[in-house]
């Protein structure tokens, strides 16, 4: 049952990523060229609505609907190097492959098979991070 709920949320996410064109390589290129408001509108309105809903969840101390536990959002670490360096590397890849992890899955379902190459190399990249983790500045 729970798996089905999360699977359904995923379907909604996949449909939205495709229909709002966030998964399009072209839209990512256009965003970094500042040629269109589209991507900024999507991200901006998502953050605006997201902030509003998280604020309300916290204000009314809403409990998790599935198990009644307190809703807790994991804090991020109080450092900056990993976020900046990791962020820059991610950005380089995002602008090149035109796909971040969510859209990778969407594009796979939409039948763009070369995305498998992106996905496998993203897994390799994740593995390499884990391998060199202790040697990297965080």
């Amino acid at each position, binding site marked *: 049952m729970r798996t089905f709920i999360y699977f359904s949320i995923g379907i909604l996410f996949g449909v939205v990523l495709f229909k709002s064109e966030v998964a399009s390589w072209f839209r990512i290129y256009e965003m970094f060229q500042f040629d269109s408001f589209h991507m900024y509108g999507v991200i901006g309105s998502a953050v605006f609505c997201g902030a509003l809903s998280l604020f309300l969840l916290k204000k009314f101390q809403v409990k998790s609907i599935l198990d009644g536990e307190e809703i807790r959002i994991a804090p991020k670490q109080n450092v900056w190097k990993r976020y900046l360096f990791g*962020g820059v590397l991610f950005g380089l890849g995002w602008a090149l492959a035109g796909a971040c992890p969510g859209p990778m899955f969407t594009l796979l379902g939409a039948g763009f098979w070369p995305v498998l190459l992106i996905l496998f190399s993203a897994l390799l990249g994740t593995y390499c991070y884990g391998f060199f983790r202790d040697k990297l500045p965080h």
Partner: protein
Amino acid sequence: MLNYFLQPWPWYIGGPLIALVLFLLVWTGKSFGMSSNLRTLCSAMGAGGKVPFFRFEWKRQSWNLAVAAGTIVGGFIASQFLSSTTAVALSTDTIEKLYVFGFTDAGQSFMPEYLFGADMLSQPKSWLLLGMGGFLVGFGARYAGGCTSGHAISGLSNFQWPSLIAVIGFFIGGLFMNHFILPFLF
């Protein structure tokens, strides 16, 4: 109405619906982060044998794999049944710039044929570019502890300043690639 639904959705529909996904995941006691699935998949494939970073109870993350599986199915449904056109209505400036790169399908298709078409299999350069891009996305997302969903959407919505640093990083890297490296690659 249906006709409108089958057209590409404007930003003011897409953005709030992404926020709805964030809301549903938080409301059910989870979090919004797609790149975590890459770590989970590495663990599931046995990466924990050699690297401690992948030694965790990955099965507790199976809910997120279900989200990822749904995302795949959602992409299938949207492209097969919910789209009267998959052409992306790009700005004319972008279409002109991409034309110079030789991307003549800009504005007419969802993805560039050069990188994602059937012929790309015979183009070693396309392999290399997608492979490099994917590697950087995977490495960078884990290094930064999140991707667009975890930092740009979830983190900024929660006013977490580390996420703001990560998003600034995304744009430093993205702008550099887009303006200074891509022109030399195509």
